[in-house]
């Protein structure tokens, strides 16, 4: 097994250690949780984890000076990056959480509050199955019976061409986005047991095929 340099980006909020535990299980040894530019520059793969409110997350990211560094690595050097939950939402142009805030604008779209029919509680919490559009990140054929763990009150509204999976919770919700080397998932693969671990494996082997 190849041992790529994997960096989990630490921007203050985010369940970094959960992501670390999951990746560790897969046998990858060179995993770091960091906001240090030097370490980020040496990474082969980046993970932008997320548990947090959008404004806190993006402000923290900007305050730590991470926006230009990540921009160079991801847009310039085309390193694969996986955004998780609010980490995925930060890829968007704007978010409406706690007022209007600009995101990284790497994938066109807006993060909006879930407006659901009666009887659907917000946040959307629990295990849901996906409707797969693009299977780059998803290996299994039997996706209807495979579940991932969601926990969010806002969702990424994007052009159909950048959505790689949807899920159904009263309305159609973007579950995963993808554009070139930029990937984002609304659910938490680090907390989706075996299927989540498989998704990480799939993401980490992307560079093998490149």
């Amino acid at each position: 097994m190849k041992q790529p340099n994997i960096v989990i980006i630490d921007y203050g909020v985010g369940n970094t250690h959960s992501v670390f535990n999951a990746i560790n299980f897969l046998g990858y040894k060179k995993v770091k949780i960091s906001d240090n530019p030097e370490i980020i520059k040496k990474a082969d793969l980046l993970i932008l984890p997320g548990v947090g409110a959008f404004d806190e997350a993006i402000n923290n990211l900007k305050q730590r000076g991470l926006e230009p560094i990540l921009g160079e690595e991801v847009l310039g050097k085309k390193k694969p990056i996986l955004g998780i939950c609010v980490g995925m939402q930060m890829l968007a142009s704007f978010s409406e959480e706690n007022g209007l805030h600009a995101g990284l604008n790497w994938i066109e779209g807006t993060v909006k509050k879930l407006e659901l029919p009666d009887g659907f509680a917000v946040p959307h919490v629990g295990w849901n199955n996906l409707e797969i559009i693009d299977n780059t990140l998803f290996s299994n054929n039997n996706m209807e019976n495979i579940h991932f763990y969601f926990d969010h009150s806002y969702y990424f509204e994007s052009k159909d061409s950048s959505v790689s999976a949807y899920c159904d919770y009263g309305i159609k919700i973007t579950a995963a986005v993808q554009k070139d080397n930029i990937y984002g998932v609304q659910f938490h693969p680090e907390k989706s047991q075996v299927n989540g671990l498989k998704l990480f494996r799939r993401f980490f082997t992307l560079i093998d095929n490149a």
Partner: protein
Amino acid sequence: MLKKRISANVIVRNGIVVQSINFKKYLPIGKPAIALEFLNQWGIDEIVLLDITAGIQNGKPDFGMVKKASVKCYVPLTVGGGINHLDHVKELMHCGADKISLNQATLHNKQLVSDTAHTFGNQCVVVSIDAVESSKGYLVYDHVTKQAMPTLTVASHAKQMEGLGAGEIFVNSVDRDGSYKGYDLNLINEVCDAVNLPVICSGGAKNANDFLKVLEDTNASAASAGNFFFFTEHSVTTTKAVVRKQKDVRLETFITYSNSNFDDEFRLLKKKDSELEDMLYVEIKKEVI
């Protein structure tokens, strides 16, 4: 479609997982890390880790314990106990927690509820409410003073917490805790009616039928149990095998018990000798991740 969740409460006292009975008696079970690893392997949907001595002894969570406990937990982990500052929440998120359960803070430090929601998002805040039945309806119970709050009903408290930014309500019946009498359906319905948040119910589960009943007769989005899961092998998997016949739950473990039979108490029945003999020659490949 979203599935109903089967969740586990892991009660920790002085660093050891315990069985809790009526919030009064505690019997030791074992190390948190091992309890979490097994629950995870048996296919639990979510784990709530509550440290009932953290706040009283140190005034802060036992971060080291959480860090060790979470290493092999690949399902969502909610951590509660001793959290009374936003820095505690931040530190816990660096120790493997995914969500935070607040109980005492909801009574004495409401600012922390809204602060946590504002920083980590509503979905990170699980408000835990202990409930006791009284002549005035269901009242909020303060587990530190060991008394009910005389004027605070569970429904109004839940509603207020929703306003402050709670993302989920975890309701635990003190009367049913460790009693094996089944969930208090009236209590759970009252909470579900009061808020438009996912509700996790706890207290009193004895067997798979209790899970089925609460998921059918109330709008609870998750049913949780503690003691019930600790004493039988594959308890989570067998429970889900029973519940899944009537209610949509996730069953993705390697072993599913889908074709097994259960007795009236939902205990696993032995398969016929002929079936067991056939199984001797079935090759089961190890799952590759």
